[in-house]
Structure formats: C-alpha cells, structure tokens
C-alpha cells in the first residue's frame, strides 16, 4: 500500500524503470557510436586537414583570389535571396492564412515542392526554361538579359531551393495570432499598411527572422542546382560550394578543407542561433 502511494506521488522512479538498465545503455551507446561514426569522425577529419597547417595557411587558402571571389559571390547571393524570401515568404504566408481563395489547398501543397524535387533537377528545369536556346531564354538574351551561366541564374536557383522556409515558419505563427486585433485596428481607422506594420508584423517578426536565417544557411551550401545554372566561371559565377568541388577534383585537399570549414562554421552558427531563438520562444510560451 505504501509502496503504491510512493509510486503515485513520485512518477520519476516509474519512468526510470520503464527500460531496463541494459536496454537504456544499449540504446544510448547505439546513438553515441552512430553519431560518432557518421558525424563526428568525418568532421574531425576535415578540421584536422584544414587547420593542420596552422591558421596562417588556413587564411591564405581563404584569401586566395579565386576562393575569396567565390566566397564573396556566395555571401552576396545568399543575402539577396534571403531578403527577397523575407518579403515574398511573408506575403505568401499572409495570403495563405488570411484570404480564402479557390485552389488554396493545392497552392499550400505546391509550396513544399522544392523540398521534394532533387536540387539538380531544379537546375535542369531552370536551364530548360531560361537556357539560351529556349524560347524564353532566347527572347531574354536578345533583350540583353542573360540568366543561365550568369548571376541571375544563381539567384533564381537559390530562390526556388529556399522558397518554402519563410512561408513554413511564418504560417503557423500567423494562424495563432488573433485576427480580432487586426480587425480592431482597422475598424478604428488605421490603414491596411499601418495595421500590418503595427499589429501583425511585431507578432510574426521572430518567425520571419528564423525562416530567413534558415534560408540563408541553405543558400550558403547549395550545390546541385547552382552547378548546373551558374556556368562556374572563376571570379564571376563560381560559388563557394562549387569552388570546393573544383578543389577536390584537382586534388587540392587543404584548399577544399579550409573553405569547407568556413562555410560549415557559418551555417552551423546560424542554425544554433535559430535553435536558441526557438527555445527562447518556447519558454516564453510556458511562462505565459
């Protein structure tokens, strides 16, 4: 009787009992060994290879003109794409949540398309549409706009690849915010734009930032679609991941490692930032 009562009062011992110590240790070791082999070991190999020659060698690899131009291009493209995504993603999420229109369900499904379609296929698709021999591509070229094998192609490819991120982070937050506040502000005479800026935007801005950071991180590492559309001209349309690929193919392992470490560090820092922001938001919810 008393034993039963302690069980009822204190769920902790029950939970610890749920798996036998052998099972617990077995699963824990499986998880640790698997991650160690699949993630930690390869990462340490690349860190050792890139930083083994000292920091001076690492920076000289990064500051070599071709490498630096590639890095600069990748960062510029990622910033442009992220800004466009922040605006268009927010608009699309707003439309999807607030305005019922025919075909909305289908539209909502199509948004995940870039997550499902192989990135290389995305690149081939863009070449099929904007390639210089195609109707639209030829028309654009005759008007002095080159898309494929130029930077506009890179921007387009990255826009397709990162399309869902902002929409999918803003959408659920927008669904939770009450429409009543918006209507109240509007009824009291605030313009649509003021209502959006003063009432809606403050509620969804953390989600916009989260989605933008995720799409930035994704744009930094994108390879499959970019390698097809960019033309990969060193110093002009060669992005950092494609530069890494070129270095691997020409057996310059340290150069490849150095650039990889920089890209990897940047993306990982961004992803940790996003996780931190989300965990902060979660605790905020609990507190309220």
């Amino acid at each position: 009787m008393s034993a039963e009562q302690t069980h009822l009062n204190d769920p902790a011992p029950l939970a610890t009992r749920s798996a036998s110590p052998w099972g617990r240790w077995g699963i824990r070791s499986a998880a640790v060994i698997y991650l160690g082999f699949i993630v930690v070991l390869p990462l340490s190999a690349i860190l050792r290879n890139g930083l083994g020659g000292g920091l001076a060698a690492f920076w000289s690899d990064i500051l070599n003109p071709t490498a630096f131009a590639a890095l600069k291009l990748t960062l510029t493209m990622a910033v442009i794409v992220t800004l466009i995504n922040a605006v268009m993603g927010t608009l699309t999420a707003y439309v999807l949540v607030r305005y019922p229109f025919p075909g909305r369900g289908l539209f909502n499904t199509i948004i995940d398309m870039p997550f499902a379609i192989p990135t290389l296929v995305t690149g081939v698709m863009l070449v099929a549409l904007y390639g210089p021999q195609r109707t639209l591509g030829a028309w654009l070229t005759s008007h002095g706009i080159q898309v494929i094998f130029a930077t506009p192609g890179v921007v387009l490819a990255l826009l397709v690849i990162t399309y869902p991120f902002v929409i999918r982070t803003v959408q659920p937050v927008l669904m939770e915010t009450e429409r009543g506040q918006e209507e109240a502000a509007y009824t009291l005479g605030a313009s649509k734009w003021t209502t959006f800026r003063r009432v809606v935007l403050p509620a969804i801005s953390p989600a916009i930032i989260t989605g933008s950071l995720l799409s930035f991180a994704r744009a930094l590492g994108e390879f499959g679609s970019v390698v097809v559309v960019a033309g990969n001209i060193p110093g002009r349309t060669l992005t950092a991941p494609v530069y890494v690929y070129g270095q691997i193919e020409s057996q310059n392992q340290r150069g490849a490692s150095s650039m990889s470490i920089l890209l990897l560090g940047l993306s990982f820092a961004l992803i940790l930032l996003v996780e931190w922001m989300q965990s902060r938001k979660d605790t905020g919810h609990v507190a309220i």
Partner: protein
Amino acid sequence: MSQSEALLRATEAEGATQGETSGSSLTALRLGGEGRSRKRGPSSRVFESILISIAVLYAAGLLIAPLVAIVWGSLAEGINAFASQVTSADALSSFKLTLIMAAGATLINTVFGLCIAWVLVRDKFWGRRIINGLVDMPFAVSPVIAGFMLILLFGRTGWLTHITEALGIKVVFALPGILLATIFISLPFVIREVAPVLSQVNPDQESAAHTMGASPLQTFWHVTLPAIRWGLLYGVSLTFARAVGEIGAVLVVSGGVSRLTETSTLFIFRSLDDRNYVGANAMSVVLAAMSFLILIVIEFFKKRTEEH
C-alpha cells in the same frame, strides 16, 4: 467571436468614445465599425486579390514554369525519344541503384534515428545537448563537403583506409561510399520528426506495459510505436525524398562509373556534360514525377501527425 476578441473590441471602443461605457453605445459603435468596413469593402477586395495574385504568380513563375519547360523539353524530340532515353540500360540501372541506396539509407537512419530520438527525449544523460547539436550538423554541411569528408576518411591517404583495405572493402568510388554519403545527408529527418511526437507520449504507459510483464521490444511495438507512427512515417518519407535527390555528396564519392556507381542524379549530371539534353530532361522528369508522389505521401503523413 472569441471572448478575448470581444473584450478587445470593447476596450478599443471605449478608448474611441472617450469613456462612454453604456452597452448601447458599444453596439452602435460596433455596428458603425462594421458599416465602415463594409463601405471599404470593394477597395479591400481589390487589395486582397492583388496580394493573392502576387503570391500565386510568384509561385507559378518560380516553381511551375520551369516544371512545364522541362516536360516540354523532354518531349522536344517526341515521346519515343523520351521513352528510349528513360529505358536505356544506363538509365534503368542508375534508377535501380538510386532506389536501393535511398531505401538502405532510409532503413539505417530510421533504426538509429529512433534510438537517437529516444535518447534526446527520455534519457537524462549529460551528453544530450551535444547530441542535439550534432544531429543538426548534416543540415549545416554543404553536400559536397559531406562527400569530401568521406574522401578524407576513406580516400587514398585517408584515416581509415588501412582498416577498410585490410577488410577488403572499397569505400570511396564504390557503393559503400554512396551509401555512407546518403546516410549522412539524410540523417536528421527521422530524429527531428519523431522527437517532438515522442515527447508527447506519456512514459507511464510504457512503464505500465513493462510492469505487466511486456519485454522492452513488446512495449515499443505495442505501446510506443502506435503513438509515434505518423510522425515516424513523416520523417521516413522526408528521409527517402532527400536520399533520392542527393547529388553533391554522391558526385564526390561515387567516381560515376556508369551502370556500377551511377545514381539517377549522376546520370543526369553526365548527360548534361555529354550534351545529351533530351536524356537529362527525361530522367529529370522521371525524378520530378517520383518526387511528386513522395510529396503527396509526405503531405498525408504531415496532416496525420498534426492531427494527433
């Protein structure tokens, strides 16, 4: 109208009428407000349709137009050219290899992903935070870099090459390398989808089954698995989709020997190099069609996960 909404409207109305709080004036105000918004009706409807058009046209231009172009391009030389490209020996064997590798990577990541998700949710163990960070690593690593790491480990002067050579296994430029690369890049999905669902399952149910004499495996099978199944299937389908479409990592480690280590994406890559555009377009259409099927499955599982 929800209570808080009504309350909010009431307080806002109060402010607007400078302290007039009688019920009748409130109703009047609300009616007035609705009247005003009705007056604004046509213009706000125009505004609404402009926003909808922008969103739809942007999506159509970015996602649908290229899709139409590629279907068009793959049929440029007729349906027979399309069919002969897709059914060529190279194409078929690449497709088979893609499916085998994706299925293998999905299976392994599902088994270990469940273990890792369990450790993250249930195991009060000091290394949990580190594990949580490591799980995100594959999302941060560019696929090319993922493949490159395998070369550093298993390539000619790699850390582990002497071990694999002693065992008689060739990893890089062979199938084990492709499998490892695919496993790496699709690792987080099952974990990230199962963990939140698993944290909703009450551990007391598992304890109850255990106390009543069920083995841990039986407990998992009859109690835990039914509760997490939709989240698990969602994660599995995402893993498979990602594994099928991988190019960067596979390109670096495969060596691209046609009919031996060439996946479908590598087949497309080689066709582009050979200026075989019809072949590249045709295989792209096949992969895109398959992605659509997977996407429908993904959406189905996602909806089920959200419902439960």
